[in-house]
């Protein structure tokens, strides 16, 4: 670990490095969060709030019988989504960990690449897949399995859960893969040697050991899925109102900030209670904070079932995207089968549409700015965190990472009330702040992980060889982690470019690309949206490839240098 424990050992500059990030974060997250809590007990003004303190906000929501319906509907989406996503991800993570061998990197790439398709468009893709004339219904009818289209596929809870699972599955797979990493196959072999069959090994060895990270992933999806409203809007049919939708409506249409704040806090409380129950359950079963000991590694395992499931998962993730791309070239305006020929007309429409290109470039500029700020502030903060007192480190790290565990609605609502209280109007600047809150934690998490894995001895060697503290930073630490910085920056760009839930709260008259897609998708259903998202996907993939090539080139350059040093010609 790069972090120093003793005062004397600690290089200076910690506070200086972490300062900008800390100040920024307090300004755009901590204070707004506190303000949101305060708003809930203020009196409602039209799109604002004022003194005196009152409990009207809370009283309103608790007296309304609809409140619990909203919460219930959200949990009815959240729990099944979390369960399905985690259950589907486990075999994939298992296969990647133990059986994948050379296929591991390509499969991971294919998984993560689906995240580059726009959030909204992926939801939208399911609409074409699941509709009455969508691929699935048409296909099943052709094959003769059903006589009439299945109605429940679309505009139902089923559709919402499928759409959300599709969104979160790659993330959960990566989280679980991280959890599986320290589980050596020796444990599985010991289990078998002691008499356990395959299922028993899962029941008595794998799942208990991984219970905490699995439930952690479950909780994360529960939080995001329960507060998500865009998916339900597109796929859910509008019969059941979810609490997320109600919160948005309360803020944006009713303009009742205290009530909106009260709803948000209620949502948080329900999620916190779920978390508490799960955590208590883990502790009771003695399955929390397990320390993996000395375990024998083993050879790669055979896992044909898990491998087949992984293939199915990849198909599940890619088919909607492929359809989106395919239909962006559709000659007619229909989005269901049969496919009637190729044409570039929708792309032309897009470029003719001034608003669309304006939104595109605005998103591009925004993402670039967000990435620049996040990269600088985030890198400094990550370094700073390794150089400050343990107590300060834990507190600041917690504050920085908190937005990951909170529903985006919370972040959006908090900034909205805060900005309104300060008297600012909504504009691209407020959107920028919202994006920063969402990107900084991810960036910091990735960097922190990389820094933690560094060998502190390397810095000490540099110092021993004569490097001054700042030089140690630039010549020893930075060269080792710059691939991580590049990767995290690419991810930041993608997150900002595609950001929707928080942006919705904070946008003024100017639209970003996701807002444009959302607005347009609600009015007309035509392949223009497919064209937008295909372009988006293309841009993301390109960024990814460029980033990967840069990293590979640098690694090759560095190993070439090492080779010439070792073998002078």
């Amino acid at each position: 670990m790069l972090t120093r424990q003793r005062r004397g050992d600690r290089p200076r500059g910690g506070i200086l490095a972490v300062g900008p990030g800390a100040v920024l974060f307090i300004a755009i997250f901590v204070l707004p969060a506190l303000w949101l809590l305060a708003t809930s007990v203020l009196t409602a003004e039209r799109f604002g709030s004022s003194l005196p303190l009152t409990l009207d906000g809370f009283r309103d929501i608790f007296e309304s019988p609809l409140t619990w319906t909203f919460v219930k509907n959200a949990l009815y989406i959240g729990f099944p989504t979390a369960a399905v996503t985690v259950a589907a991800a486990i075999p994939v993570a298992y296969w990647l960990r133990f059986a994948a061998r050379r296929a591991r990197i390509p499969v991971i790439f294919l998984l993560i690449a689906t995240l580059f398709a726009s959030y909204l468009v992926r939801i939208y893709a399911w609409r074409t897949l699941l509709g009455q004339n969508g691929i699935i219904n048409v296909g099943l009818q052709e094959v003769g399995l059903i006589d009439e289209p299945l109605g429940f596929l679309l505009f139902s809870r089923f559709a919402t859960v499928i759409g959300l699972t599709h969104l979160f599955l790659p993330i959960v797979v990566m989280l679980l893969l991280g959890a599986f990493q320290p589980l050596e196959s020796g444990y599985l072999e010991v289990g078998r040697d002691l008499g356990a069959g395959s299922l028993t090994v899962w029941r008595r060895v794998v799942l208990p050991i991984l219970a905490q990270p699995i439930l952690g992933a479950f909780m994360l999806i529960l939080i995001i899925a329960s507060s998500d409203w865009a998916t339900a809007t597109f796929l859910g049919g509008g019969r059941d109102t979810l609490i997320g939708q109600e919160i948005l409506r309360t803020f944006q249409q009713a303009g009742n900030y205290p009530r909106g704040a009260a709803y948000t806090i209620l949502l948080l409380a329900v999620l916190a209670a779920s978390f508490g129950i799960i955590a208590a359950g883990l502790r009771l079963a003695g399955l929390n904070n397990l320390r993996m000991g000395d375990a024998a590694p083993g050879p790669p395992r055979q896992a044909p079932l898990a491998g087949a499931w992984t293939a199915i998962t990849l198909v599940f993730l890619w088919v909607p995207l492929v359809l989106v791309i395919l239909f962006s070239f559709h000659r007619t305006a229909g989005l269901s089968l049969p496919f009637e020929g190729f044409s570039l007309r929708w792309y032309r429409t897009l470029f003719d549409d001034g608003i669309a290109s304006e939104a595109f470039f605005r998103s591009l500029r925004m993402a670039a700015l967000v990435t620049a700020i996040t990269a600088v502030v985030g890198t400094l903060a990550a370094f700073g965190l390794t150089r400050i007192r343990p107590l300060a480190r834990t507190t600041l790290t917690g504050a920085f990472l908190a937005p990951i565990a909170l529903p985006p609605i919370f972040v959006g609502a908090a900034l909205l009330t805060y900005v309104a209280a300060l008297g600012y109007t909504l504009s691209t600047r407020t959107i920028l702040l919202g994006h920063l809150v969402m990107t900084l934690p991810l960036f910091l998490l990735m960097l922190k992980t990389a820094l933690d894995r560094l060998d502190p001895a390397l810095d000490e060697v540099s110092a021993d060889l004569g490097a001054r503290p700042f030089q140690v930073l630039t010549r020893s630490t930075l060269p080792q982690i710059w691939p991580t910085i590049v990767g995290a920056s690419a991810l930041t760009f993608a997150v900002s470019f595609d950001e929707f839930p928080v942006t919705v709260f904070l946008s003024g008259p100017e639209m970003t690309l996701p807002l444009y897609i959302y607005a347009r998708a609600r009015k007309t259903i035509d392949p223009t949206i497919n064209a937008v998202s295909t372009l988006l996907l293309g841009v993301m993939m390109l960024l990814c490839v460029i980033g990967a090539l840069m990293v590979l080139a640098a690694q090759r350059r560095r190993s070439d240098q090492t080779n010439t040093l070792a073998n002078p010609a």
Partner: protein
Amino acid sequence: MTTEAHLHIDGVSHRYGDQDALVAVNIGVAKGEFVTLVGPSGCGKTTLLRIVAGLLSPTEGRIVLNGADITSVPANRRPTNLVFQRPTLFPHLDVRGNIEFGLKLAKLAKAERATRIQEVIDLLHLGGLERRRPFELSGGQMQRVSLARALVNRPEVLLLDEPLSALDMQIRLELEVELRRVHREIGATFLYVTHDQREALALADRVVVFDNGSVAQIDRPEDVYRTPASAFVARFVGDANVLAGEVISGKDHGENIAAIHGCPIGPTRHEPGPCSVVIRAEAWAIGNHGSPDSLEGTVLDRVFRGSTVAYRVQLTADGQLVRAEAAAGDPPRAVGDRVGLSCTGEFVVIATMAETDSSQEGTSD
């Protein structure tokens, strides 16, 4: 073999892709025997152990236990248990839970489980540690729990894969004593893999020396040490020198003499001709340069080892390196001294094999 083997490894071969890990291995183990499999890293001994355990299917051959072919029986149903190289204790269970794991799967009654667990806790001196979690144990304690977890199931054959190699020397020696004691007390058949030849000789009733996937020798430890079957075995076990020499015909129907560069070493029944002579480091006497019947050489290196001193001497005649050991009380020789080596202990003559190279350093430990 007078008694039917308890465990018979019958013609087992295993290939990984185009690599031969094991070639036609035949080993018979009697009931209650302690057999060690020893050889350098990568020679296939762990592969063989995993095949006996059922974690790997051999490309060819059979595993026969008590006369029954168990080759296709899956690992979880074989009456064998494997103690792994690392303790691999389940982190979500305490010591008792770990030990009980196999018993619960065998669906034994609660009372029976309790009895067996107590037996094995007493046997391995684990009293008082039942409620501890693995991370609260020392390295030695963890391996003892790992051993207990396997033994409690009363396997027909206990398989051990270098269980002591990750431990400190002191703990390792203690646990070796424990292992021999446990073996005596329960009388089970033990199959023990190690790359440490000292350990292999110390623990075993019989030693199987592996060379690149094949069995080089199976014998009692004393026999492997004193009469190695090949140069490989000679080099691997103990601190030996394998020197190029020749066998000279005995005069007047006397015995043939083994010699190195004309310097007689001793009588042998081997046929005249070129040969390799195996002489242990401790069988040399280091005398003065020019003594009769001694090999001339120069001291290259000297290492103090407590009760002995180890010398490396380069022979003047052909540059072969000889490792010789002298008692600490003997007259010391300095680096660069010219000395005369004579063989005062045992030696073995073996046929020269293709792989005997002239610049040998006898492999030790």
